[in-house]
């Protein structure tokens, strides 16, 4: 079970409060988590990644375990702590400034 933290606007759109726990078949990747998320909440289709190319929208970032996964291959396995549900995958709206530390040792 993977935990996903959405920005407030997307929680409203999906009709959820708090974190989302979602089942993903096999080793979770960014793509497989988003596939499962969009399948359960179709209103989120196109809001995080392009509906056709599946490219991440430019003003969004993916963080986990104090690391920036935004530019990792979307089919790369997520950190073990995310896969186990110990740490969430954060989907964050980019605002301005500040470099997030590179991926920590938890992966």
């Amino acid at each position: 079970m993977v935990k996903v933290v959405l920005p407030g606007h997307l929680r409203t759109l999906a009709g959820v409060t708090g974190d989302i726990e979602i089942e993903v078949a096999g080793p979770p990747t960014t793509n497989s988590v988003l596939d499962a998320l969009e399948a359960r909440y179709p209103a989120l289709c196109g809001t995080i990644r392009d509906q056709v190319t599946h490219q991440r929208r430019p003003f969004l970032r993916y963080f986990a375990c104090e690391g920036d996964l935004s530019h990792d291959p979307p089919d790369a396995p997520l950190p073990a702590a995310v896969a186990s549900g110990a740490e969430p995958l954060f989907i964050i709206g980019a605002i301005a400034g500040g470099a997030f530390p590179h991926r920590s040792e938890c992966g």
Partner: protein
Amino acid sequence: MWAGGKGECGGGEFLSGWRGVVGLGSARIPINSTQGEAMSRVRVLVGTRKGAFILSSDGKRQHWEVSGPHFAGWPVYHAKGSPVDPNRIYASQSSDWFGQVIQRSNDGGKTWETPGGGVTKTPDGMPVGESNKYVYDTSAQTGKPLTTHQWYDGTQHPWEFKRVWHLEPSLTDPETVYAGVEDAALFRTTDGGHSWQEMAGLRGHGTGPKWQPGAGGLCLHTIVLDKDNPKRIFIAISAAGAFRTDDGGTNWKPINQGLRSQYIPDPNAEVGHCVHHMAMHPARPGVLFMQKHWDVMRSDNAGDLWTEVSGNLPTDFGFVIEVHAHEPETIYVVPIKSDGEHFPLDGQLRVYRSRKGGNEWEALTKGLPQRDCYVNVLRDAMAVDSLDKCGVYFGTTGGQVYASADAGDSWAPIVRDLPAVLSVEVQTLA
């Protein structure tokens, strides 16, 4: 993208008895009206940079109920109700962060849904929502090659979907809606917004590489339907110009003859004109009015030829243009100082009305701020109701929505502290 921030306008009084407070939920105001006036109601749909608002009144248009913000925090470019089923309202919710979302209401804006976007019971429980999916049609059977358009610097630029600017519900079918999008193209749904298909004949007209973005982007912002001829549609694009189809959208022709734009290499070019808005009276489908970047224009032959009717306007730059509900020769504009200074001349907010279809204009100022007003009125932010005494409404980038219940003779703000207003539509309800 949107010129101007929140303006600080002096002057202007609240409509008598208005005590609403804009905020979450709705502020219900007691209505004291005669039975006859109460038979009619008006609903004003307002899109703003931070959500949608719905302003409701009885036919007297003196006491208003304000509901919103709906979709709080999101820009709502446009919201419009179906002429066939007024409780069916479509809204375009759009964000640079999260993309395009289509919202639909079946109860006059009390509740909303994303068509096809409900929560599924299981990961494969229902088809993935297509309501937010706008994909240019490049198929061999129905589409057109995805060519390039001109970028600001004159180079060619790939076509990329960004947002829906305008939603135009069908005049006959509440499930059918046309969507004008950026980068400029026309889409249509026939299933209530669940799925959208491009009407690719427009983008494939062949002049696409000459289309260029205006300051707001390469947007298709105006869609005018003809109630007498369902196969005829007019659209306008900034900055390409106006186009018309007479076969339901398969083939399109540019209708820009007579437009003159000194800021493009060929001022009389077939395409490339920055049309800001067009309006047409439903009873006279061949007569079109246009607010171009500069110049107010009219056509008496469905756009085949345009003539300038700016006449005595103090400036003929502006964005909105609208036609009186019962007087097809009475039109309204809001002159804006210039393309470099997007606010009224001399800090005086003035609507101009012509009762002769242009050329002779009168300033309408009663109730509007006549000093220190530096707001803008954007292209989709004026509308009329169809009550006996035609109501006229417009919204500003300073967050005011002004209403006139006497065809423009006098004005008062319904609300004055909304986020910047992007669009205003009006529904007259029996």
